[in-house]
C-alpha cells in the first residue's frame, strides 16, 4: 500500500494543518510517512504545495513523481489545477470551490471548475462557506479533509484522534468545532464519492 497525496493552496491557508493530521494518523497506524513542505519566500501569499506520502513500506523520495498522486486535496480551485501533472489516471481531485484572489489576472471561477469537472473523480464543495456556518472560515481545511476521508486509506478513528491531538492545546471548543467541520465535509462529499466509486 502506498498513497501519494498533494495538498495545495496559497501560503497561510492551512494546508500544513491538514498534513499534520495525515502524518500523525499514519504514524499512529505504524505506517511510514514522508511529508515535503514549502518554507520561505513562497509562503508570502504565493502558491504552496505539500507532498504527503504514506506507505506500509519504506518511502524513498520526499517528492511525489509526476503522474503518481492518488489525490490532490486543494483549499483553492486554481491551486488544484496547478498540480494536475502529478495526478495519476485514477486519482481524485478534492477542492474548495471558493477562490482566493490576490492576483489581477485570476481566471473566471467557472472556467476553473469546468476544468476540474473534466476529471472523472472529483469533489468540489464550498468548504469555506460550510466552515463559516460552523463558526470560522479557517476550518475549511478540516471540512476538506472530511470530504477526502473516504479516499484516504487511514481509519477514521486515527484521523479523529489526530485532530484532537493537534488542537487540544487550544481548547475543547476548538477541538469540537474542527471535528464538526470534518464530519460536515464527510457528509456532503459522501454522495459524490460513492457515486464515482460505483461507476
Amino acid at each position: 500500500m502506498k498513497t501519494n497525496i498533494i495538498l495545495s493552496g496559497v501560503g497561510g491557508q492551512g494546508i500544513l494543518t491538514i498534513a499534520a493530521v495525515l502524518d500523525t494518523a499514519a504514524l499512529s497506524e505504524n505506517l511510514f510517512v514522508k511529508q515535503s513542505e514549502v518554507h520561505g519566500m513562497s509562503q508570502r501569499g504565493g502558491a504552496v504545495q505539500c507532498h504527503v506520502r504514506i506507505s506500509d513500506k519504506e518511502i524513498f523520495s520526499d517528492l511525489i513523481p509526476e503522474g503518481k498522486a492518488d489525490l490532490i486535496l486543494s483549499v483553492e480551485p486554481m491551486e488544484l489545477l496547478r498540480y494536475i501533472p502529478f495526478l495519476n489516471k485514477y486519482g481524485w481531485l478534492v477542492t474548495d470551490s471558493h477562490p482566493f484572489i490576490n492576483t489581477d489576472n485570476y481566471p473566471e471561477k467557472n472556467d476553473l471548475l469546468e476544468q476540474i469537472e473534466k476529471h472523472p473523480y472529483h469533489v468540489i464543495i464550498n468548504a469555506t462557506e460550510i466552515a463559516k456556518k460552523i463558526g470560522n472560515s479557517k476550518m475549511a481545511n478540516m471540512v476538506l479533509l472530511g470530504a477526502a476521508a473516504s479516499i484516504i486509506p487511514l481509519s477514521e478513528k486515527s484521523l479523529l484522534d489526530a485532530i484532537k491531538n493537534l488542537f487540544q492545546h487550544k481548547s475543547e471548543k476548538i477541538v469540537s468545532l474542527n471535528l464538526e467541520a470534518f464530519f460536515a465535509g464527510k457528509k456532503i462529499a459522501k454522495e459524490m464519492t460513492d457515486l464515482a466509486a460505483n461507476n
Partner: protein
Amino acid sequence: MKSLLLGNEALAQGSIDAGLSGVYAYPGTPSTEITEYIQRSKLAKELKIHTTWSVNEKTAMESALGMSYVGLRAMVVMKHVGLNVASDVFMNMAVSGINGGLVVVVADDPSMHSSQNEQDSRFYGKFAMIPILEPSNQQEAYDIMYNAFDLSEELKLPVMLRMVTRLSHSRAGIELRERRAQNVMSLPDDTSRFALIPMNAKKQFDKLVNKKSLLIEISENTSLNSLKLSEDRDIGIIACGIAYNYVMENIGDDVDYYSILKISQYPLPKKKIIKLYQHCHKVLVVEEGYPVVEELLHNYFDDNDKIKGRLTGDIPQTGELNPNIVANSLGIFQASPKAIPSIVAPRPPQLCEGCGHTDLFNTINELIPEIGNKSVFGDIGCYALGALPPLNTINTLIDMGASITMAKGATDAGLENAIAVIGDSTFTHSGMTGLLDAVFENSPITVIISDNSAIAMTGAQESSAVGRLHNICLGLGVHPDHLKKMVPLKKNHDENVALLRNELKYKGVSVIISERPCVRLSRDQKEEIKAKIASLS
C-alpha cells in the same frame, strides 16, 4: 510511536542528543528551523544550551569556534550563501583545527526556492579540506549529526554537514537514541595552533594537508559510503546524499540489477569508486547541486565517455533533482504527464496585506519621476519583493548589505539621488560597515532602513537591531540633522514624500529609519519588543 520531524528538526535533535553545548546561527531559508527547534526545546533549556541568534554567520561561526576552543561541542548553522559571509573563519579554522567537536551545518537551496544562487557547499568543504557529511534522509540527518562531533574531535577538525532544501523541509518518523552527556570545559593543551601567525600557520597547514589520506581512509571504511555490485554490469550509479532517494524511488523493485555506490561522506572513497568504475560499462553520477563528484571522476579516469551526469546533459545542469529527472537519466520510461490547464495564472509571493514595506515603496515611487527609475538599491529580505510588479521600486538585490555599498559606488561614479533600502536585521548583519564607508567619505546617498523589528522573511525571528538603530547610526557618524524617522502609513504619505525629497537634496549621507512592526509579529512578540526598547533607553 516515532517522532515526526523535519529533516532540520531531526538534525537539531541529533545535536542535542550528541551533547551539544551551543548553537550559533543567523536565520536563512532553508536552515532556520534547526536553531528554532533547539530554541523551543525544553531539554535544551535544561541543559543550558546556548541558542540566541547571532548578528551574522561570521560572528556565529567565530563564537562556535570560541566554544570549541574551551572544549565544548558547538554547532554553527546557516544557509549556503551564509557560508560566503563566514568563509574567512571557515577556511582558517580548518587550519587551526578545533578542540571541542565543531559541526558546520550548511543548507543548500538548489532551484533557488528562496535564494539568489544555487552554490554547492561541498566545494567549500573540499576547499577547506575537511570532511563533509551529506545525509540522504531524515533518520540519517539525526544519526549523522549524532556522530558528527565524535568525528570532529577524533580528527581535531571542523566537520561540514550539508543539507538541501528538500531534506530540510520534509518530515518523516525518526527513531531517537540515548542522549549523551555534554563535554566539560577543557582548554587546549597547546594554544599555539590557534594563533595563526605564519610560523604556526605553516605547521598547521602541513598537518591539515597530511590528514587527507586519513580522511579518505575513514570515507572508505564508513558504512555511510556503501557499495553494492550487481551481476549486471551495464550501469553503475553513484548516488550522493538525497539523490540516493530519487534513485531508489525509481529502481526500488529492481535494485538487484544495479550496482550502486551511496555517498554520504567526503572526501570520496576512491577505492570504492574505482571498483564500481571497473565493474560497470557506464557510471551515472546523481548528485544534488553542482557536478562536484562528476568532475572528480573525470580527474580519476581518462575514459570520459563512460561517466554520465550533469556535465553530459543526462541530468540538467541547473536546478534540483526530482524522481522524474532521475528516471530520465536512468532511461526509465515515463508516460507524459497531464498538462496544467492554460487558464492557471502564476501566483508569485507578495508582501503581506498591511505591510509597512508597501507604504515605504509607495513613498519612494512618488519620487521616481524626479529621480529616475534606476537608482534604488535593494537588499535581502521581504522588501526584495519590491522588485516585482506592481511596485517595481527596487533595481538591485545581490547580497546582504550591498544596497548601501552599491549606492555608494554608483554615487562615486556620478549617479545622483541614489537610495539604499535595507531592513533592520540586514543592516546589523552587513550594512553597518558599508554605512561607515559612506560616512567616511560623506557620500551623497540616502539610506532607508526599513525597520520592522524582526527578521521577517524567515519567520519573524528576533532582530538584534531592535532599539539600537538610532544610536548605531549616530555612533557611526551619521549627522544628527540627517538621521530621520518616518512611520510608513498611508496617512503619513505626503509628509514622508516631503521628508525623502528633502534628504535627497542633501549632498551627504542621510539615514531615514522607516519604522513599523512586521504584521506577522504576534502580540507577545510585540510586547517583548516594546519591553526591549524600554530597557535600552
